[in-house]
């Protein structure tokens, strides 16, 4: 075995650990299905330029039903919307929008939440009091009301949405991390680290953080799902990303009035978003199952 016994805990590359993690998932059928769905959508998003039959904003034949023939000899597999844009292409490109903004927003919320949670849980004291009260405050708002307030006041843009999600989600992450840290900070190995004279940042990131990974990963998957739904809802309410960029929520908003006559326009983006969130939820469940049996 290598010489790096000492730094072994830190040296193995991230992607290798990720793959090892995924391999563990094999034990849970539910987790595998979820992972499959997520991987599918990630692939769709990445390969969008190559697999999308038409440009997403090209106006072709309005009100075409699913399976109708296209003027250039192809098929509108999912039909077209009221302006004539191919729905399949818009769904494919919409996955990009979702899979860029949602992970970005969730990631920001996590970074902020983890740092605050570690600090609050480890130091206790007035820092903890202030942070906890503040997070209680933010969490006491009905979530959507908060978003509407922020977006309606500051306008809707990609950046605003990311900031709003970070602001609304970081307290929840902070709460979770804080709870996990409180659990761990009284363990003897933390005392041993303190007696070695380790710096606080070392204790937080090297001693504590690796041991809270499991529940955090599960929460991350679930939260990513919530954020995707949130972005969808904002788009649905007309507060999402400005058109014409395809965004599943926005697509549903634009076509919902026609649901009674042409349900296919809103139906397929709904299926897309539901399947992606389902995949994430199943994945989270699978990871939780694996962690329990580990």
């Amino acid at each position, binding site marked *: 075995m290598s010489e790096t016994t000492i730094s072994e805990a830190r040296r193995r590359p991230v992607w290798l650990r990720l793959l090892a993690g995924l391999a563990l998932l094999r034990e849970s059928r539910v987790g595998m299905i979820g992972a499959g769905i997520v991987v599918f959508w990630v692939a769709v998003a990445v390969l969008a330029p190559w697999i999308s039959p038409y440009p997403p904003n090209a106006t072709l034949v309005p009100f075409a039903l699913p399976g109708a023939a296209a003027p250039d000899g192809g098929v509108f597999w999912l039909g077209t919307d009221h302006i004539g844009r191919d729905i399949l292409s818009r769904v494919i490109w919409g996955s990009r929008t979702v899979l860029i903004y949602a992970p970005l927003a969730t990631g920001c919320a996590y970074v902020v939440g983890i740092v605050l949670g570690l600090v609050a849980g480890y130091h206790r004291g007035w820092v903890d009091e202030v942070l906890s009260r503040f997070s209680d405050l933010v969490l006491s*708002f009905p979530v*959507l009301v908060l978003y*509407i307030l922020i977006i309606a006041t500051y306008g809707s843009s990609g950046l605003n949405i990311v900031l709003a999600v970070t602001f609304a989600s970081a307290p929840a992450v902070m709460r979770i991390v804080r709870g996990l840290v409180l659990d761990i900070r009284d363990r003897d190995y933390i005392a041993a680290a303190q007696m070695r004279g380790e710096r606080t940042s070392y204790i937080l990131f090297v001693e504590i953080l690796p041991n809270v990974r499991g529940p955090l990963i599960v929460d991350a998957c679930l939260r990513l799902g919530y954020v995707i739904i949130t972005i*969808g809802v904002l788009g*649905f309410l007309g507060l999402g990303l400005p058109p014409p960029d395809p965004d599943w929520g926005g697509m549903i908003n634009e076509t919902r009035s026609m649901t009674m006559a042409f349900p296919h326009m809103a139906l397929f983006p709904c299926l897309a*978003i539901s399947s992606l969130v*389902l995949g994430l939820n199943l994945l989270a469940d699978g990871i939780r199952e694996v962690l329990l049996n580990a």
Partner: protein
Amino acid sequence: MSRFIVKRLLFLLATMLVVSVLLFALLEISPGSVATKVLGPYSSQEQRDLWLAAHGYFDPIWLRYGRWLGHMLQGDFGESIRFKVPVAQVLWPRLANTAVLGGLVLAIMVPLALGMGMLAGMREGSRLDRGISLVSIVTTSVPEFASSVFLAALFVFWLDWLPGTSTMAEGWHWNELVLPVGVLVLYDFGYVARITRASMVEVMLRPYIRTAVLKGLPYRRVIVRHALRNALIAPFTVIMLQINWLLSGVIVVEFFFAYKGFGSLLLEASLNQDLFLIEACTMVSVAVAVGTQTLADIGYVYLNPRIRFS
């Protein structure tokens, strides 16, 4: 116990106060933008100044805030820019409508979720459990707007059993409530069912359940008297918090089905920059949210003898 209640109530008041300050700072801080929103973008500077002076906007900030808060507490929320009537006149009827909707949702969802959650938890690992868990995961993955589309497509477009909008244009029809209530129940029950199930599973593994069984108690008694009392503590708080969640959920549903409720009012107000209406709606919804949270906290302590008598 009573000390705890007092503390929580004080915290509730403090929260409302802080929220009011934040709201005031957000929306009313600059008189210029207020006047523009009230009188419209085409009004002249002179008109705005006249209006601002008449409504005391040139007074010092703390005086304005105090007056604003005072009005709020008396129920005077000002006049809606769009509807041109006092906000209170628009707000309360809409709130009542949403209350009806919410009440129906809770009345259906709570027994359903608790029942299924407990059954799943008692028979952990069985096919029933796995079925209920799967249904729960699927329903919580489908956001309300999506399920609105699905249900509308199914029941309105395809089967034509139910009306597609819930405007109550021709008086009160219960069948117009079916779809909105259905969508909300569908999304929400999964979450509560899963929490109940998890709580039940955890309780069934506890040593005191083993003690009860080995005392020779009949199974029914073990479940009802020993397991449920402990297992229902967590779901109770979650259900109280669902009221908080409902305030968000109704926005989407009311918007989709054109139901004249509180949620759609807030949304319209935001989209129309109807300032005073936004303020009023926000304060009311935060009040409801924080109020239910306080109730949930108090209830949790009350139900948990370990905390109550410590």
